[in-house]
């Protein structure tokens, strides 16, 4: 899970609209937006609300907790030269605030991976200036820090 394991890592294509998200990730905060016009949760971050087209979006911090919406064990690396351990768990997490994100799930006991299993975010500092939000399973509801 370090930079050395993913030598061909490509930086996300950030934009001026999403910069606060990546700055938040570097601080260990998972940010999303809420529309001031229609109150909908907005994710991925953007400049205009996709639901009501309002330009008034406020940043909020997610508690970083949610559940697995879907997942897969990927046995083939995207980049042939990648040294990352396989299989890699890639999934979609539904955050408690009501948005979904594609992510990696750090779990080697694959039998624990289930739809609706509770997860929490952590931040993987894959480079000095880049932290990727990833998730790990929470042992039991309410017992994790």
């Amino acid at each position, binding site marked *: 899970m370090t930079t050395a394991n993913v030598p061909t*890592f490509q930086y996300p294509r950030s934009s001026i609209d999403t910069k606060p998200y990546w700055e938040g990730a570097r601080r260990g905060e998972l940010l999303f937006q809420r529309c001031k016009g229609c109150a909908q949760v907005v994710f991925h971050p953007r400049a205009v609300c996709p639901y009501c087209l309002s330009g008034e979006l406020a940043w909020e911090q997610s508690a970083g907790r949610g559940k697995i919406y879907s997942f897969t064990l990927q*046995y083939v690396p*995207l980049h042939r030269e990648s040294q990352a351990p396989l299989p890699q768990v*890639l999934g979609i997490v539904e955050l408690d605030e009501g*948005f*979904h*994100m*594609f992510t990696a799930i750090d779990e080697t006991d694959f039998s624990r991976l289930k739809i609706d299993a509770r997860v929490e975010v952590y931040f993987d500092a894959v480079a000095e200036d880049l932290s990727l939000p990833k998730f790990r399973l929470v042992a039991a509801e309410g017992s994790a820090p």
Partner: protein
Amino acid sequence: MSMEHLRGKAAIIGFGDSYATRDNLKTPLRLAAEATRAALQDAGLEKDDLDGLLVGRQPGADERPQYNNIFAAYIKLTPRYASEVTIHAAGINSAIKHAAIAVTSGLARFVLCVNADAAGLMDPRVVTAGFDADPEFEQPYQPIIPAIYAQIACRLMHEYGITEEDMAAVAVQCQEWAVHHPHAARASKGRVTVEQVMNSRMICSPLRLWHCAPWGPAGTGGAVIVARADDAKAVTKTPLYILGSSECQTHEYITDRLALRSSHLPLGPLPSITSTGARVAGPDAYKMAGVGPKDIDVLQTGSNFAHSELVALSELGFTNLRESGDFVRSGATGFDGHIPTNTNGGWLSFGQPGVSCVMDSIIEGVRQLRGQALGKQVKDPEIGMIHALGGMMACQSVTILGKSR
């Protein structure tokens, strides 16, 4: 919105195809030109008769924008109506509809719809992952495309009780067709059993090797020429009338689909990654054509993965998701079934040469209706349906063709 006034008003009057192999590699431009030459010959037209040109998405093996211009220049065509039609690769299926609109409105008389690609000339795993995963929020986690489609498969199993064996049944049936086709990428593998599929290498759980379309053949090109129905009768004895056509797009990247929380269209409960725009495009196309699922004699679906076919068969009204595995196991989609499906092996067994996989489906649909199948010929089909999907189940396009109006 209604397109019924367009039913049977335009027709495919000629088709052509071209194929590459690992030992005889061809560029997408060459494949497209060879397919065009064959289509002109089939229609009995000269190149300069073509005044309209619609190309599908730029080939993965030749990624240049304005591919219509690039191809027109390659064969020195000077169209007065031209564009690249992309709803991902499915655009070329919808191009038939756009061509019908063009010829019936007088924008053009003969519109060439052409698409080609050459998996043999690229590294599709990297090329396609680059544009099918969100560059900012998905790509950093380095998914390959099967990892994205596996999210859908995982949800299908959870929501509808689809099993890995259900998906395996699709692969087995597609291979039954493919072994008869001279250009099918997996034809040389011979028939397979459910057990073989279930024992094949895991790619992205629950998807195994045989649940995923292979990259290949090394290259394919296809072309159809569309004209007004009145012109068609003068040109050819075997016009295929464009009876119905519709499309619907729901998203671009898979995660983004989950932010579609409501819709004015009948997409089912949202958010969802198991429903697709085929729930809209299918009924719309049937309505335009004035037919229903029972009237379709031969079907091609966009089935890059085995579960994609189960979804398509269900959403197009041939079965429902919970029974879709049994439906395929019953032989319904086979040679003796009531809806022969993916008769060249489909994307699962014919393979995906790149973006031209949709044109391959169109060519197979046309060849079946014309009685000129290169593989196994369905007995006297009158009406054929071509379903295409593009992107991460994002774009859905349906075309219904018939021998009579």
